[in-house]
């Protein structure tokens, strides 16, 4: 159903997965993965908790230090500190090199500019100033309600719905954008790190099995990469099942060494499919038409 005034989307709609293309100035697409709503809510909770703990501790310390002569200075410190904590916690951490608050770091998230450029101070301030209407506005409505309980019920429901739009905004768009992200042109992405898995094809210092063209023609890239996962996971029952299946399909007798068989088959299949790639033939999966060798 098309609403009368909604324009047709200009380009292809973004996919439903959380992977987004992110092109560096060098023109390479890094394929970033967006942070999920749960991780982001968790990060916010952690940050809020840290802020509250700091506020409570500092307040207690100030109350302990309180004397007649120092009341002035301490009151100023508390007020400025509270202001800085409320408005500066997120912005200052995100302006730093890690692009993430402590909560985001713990949840493995970071803030990046959607266009691949440097994250500017203006963007960070914009995305965090919007928390005023996303978080503090709903909170203050709730607070006002509990404080006096005199406000008109209908008005309160209206106000809650209105502020709820802002609070739950990230759930209603594909990119999981907060209003702040929308205004600032930022994304929150997962910051991953990992080590290089071992080369499954190396160590060719033992005799290898040779497979016929018919046996290698059974599968495509998808199956190859599934096989890679099976080999890397190293679960013996999965390996046995997959080895049995391949032997069954290709009509190869069982030689008792499932892992050796699978890694040889992987190497041979990989080499064959890569030869196809070089001449521009990519066989996605086993259902794609088998190509001439």
């Amino acid at each position, binding site marked *: 159903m098309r609403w009368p005034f909604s324009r047709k989307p200009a380009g292809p709609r973004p996919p439903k997965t959380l992977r987004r293309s992110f092109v*560096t100035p*060098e023109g*390479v697409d*890094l394929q*970033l993965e967006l942070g999920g709503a749960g991780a982001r809510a968790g990060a916010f909770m952690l940050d809020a908790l840290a802020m509250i703990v700091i506020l409570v501790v500092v307040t207690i310390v100030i109350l302990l230090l309180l004397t007649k002569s120092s009341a*002035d200075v301490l*009151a*100023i410190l508390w*007020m400025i500190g*509270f*202001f800085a904590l409320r*408005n500066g916690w997120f912005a200052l951490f995100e*302006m730093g*090199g*890690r*692009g993430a608050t402590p909560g985001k770091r713990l949840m493995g998230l*970071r803030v*990046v500019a959607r266009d*691949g450029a*440097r994250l500017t*101070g*203006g*963007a960070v*301030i*914009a995305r965090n*100033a*919007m928390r*005023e*209407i996303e978080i503090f506005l709903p909170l203050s409505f709730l607070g006002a309600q509990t404080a006096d309980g005199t406000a008109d019920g209908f008005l309160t429901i209206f106000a809650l719905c209105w502020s709820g739009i*802002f609070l739950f905004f990230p759930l209603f768009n594909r990119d999981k954008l907060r*209003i702040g992200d*929308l*205004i600032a*042109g930022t994304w929150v992405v997962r*910051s*991953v790190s*990992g080590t*290089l*898995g071992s080369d*499954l094809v*190396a160590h*060719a*210092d*033992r*005799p290898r*099995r040779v*497979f016929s063209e018919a*046996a290698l023609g059974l599968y495509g*890239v998808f199956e190859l990469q599934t096989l*890679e*996962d099976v080999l*890397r996971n190293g679960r013996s029952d999965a390996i046995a099942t997959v080895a049995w299946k391949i032997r069954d399909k*290709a009509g*190869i007798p069982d030689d008792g060494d499932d892992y050796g068989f699978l890694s*040889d088959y992987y*190497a041979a299949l*990989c*080499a064959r499919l*890569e030869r196809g*790639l070089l001449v521009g033939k990519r066989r996605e999966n086993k259902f794609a038409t088998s190509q001439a060798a």
Partner: protein
Amino acid sequence: MTAGTSAFVGAQPILVNASRFRAAHEAEWQRLDALVSRIEKRSVKALSEDDLLALPLLYRSALSSLSVARETSLDRALIAYLEQLCTRAYFQIYGVPTSALRQLRRFFVRSWPAAMQALWRETLVAFLLTVAGVLVGYLLVRNDPSWFYGIIPDAMAQGRDPSASAESLRSTLYAKHQDMLATFAAFLFTHNAQIAIFSFALGFAFTVPTVLLIVYNGLMLGAFMAVFASKGLGAAFTGWIMIHGTTELFAIIVSGAAGIRIGTAIAFPGRESRGDAAMRAGHVGATAMAGAVVMLSVAGLLEGIGRQTILDDMARYAIGLAMLAGWLVYFYLPRRHDALAV
């Protein structure tokens, strides 16, 4: 049945692209990995000069490895590793902002005045709305003082209402407070700055709440003016408000203008997509709003300390006008074009 039967052959090397590729470049990737990990753990200062020079080269070579691997290799682990390595290196090379001091300098020298100049239309609108609010508030209360109670909440009036005597009103203008001046200044600053940030953020709702805030601000000012003017204290009240008001009202107008810019960009994106328009407006608006917070800290000092110690009308006028002139010159004095390019 012999079709698929495997035979063993000797250690004939089966080479896939991934193996060749790993053999040729793995050392570079490992070095880049080590460098990036070191920066992530500490800072870019942890690198030696050689490493610093090598970093961009290693990054580019890893990127090109990634492109080649995606096209020619089917080893998923290799591609996943290169993707995360390139991403981490990218963030360390492009994502890291410059030092805080340089960012601050850039803000005051370039970004802030540039944002103010870009916002001149919205600033003018917010100013006119304030003036309209002041006029309406003034006329309403002058004609029918009972309007005052409809506009100003009791807590804020603190006895400064139409029923107050001229003497008590005068005393509020020239009362000399000596204690807690700095505390008062800090309170005013944090309170006003929070409102400024709020009115910026509210602009997102198609500017309506921001406009209401601005007009209401003007209404209150006009209502107070009417009360003081009716007792012949108009000039004195203007001086009392002016010493900090030129800065404070200007800041409120600016943050309102920033909110208006966001709301109008979302409602009427023009030729750009809604998202792009919102983003550009957000950057300009946020910069101006950060500036408004700076202005409000100055206003807090002027109001909390300056106004309580300077009791002379002429001096109050002079300070207020000088501040206004200073801000106007700082924001709008034409500069060389390249000096403002953000």
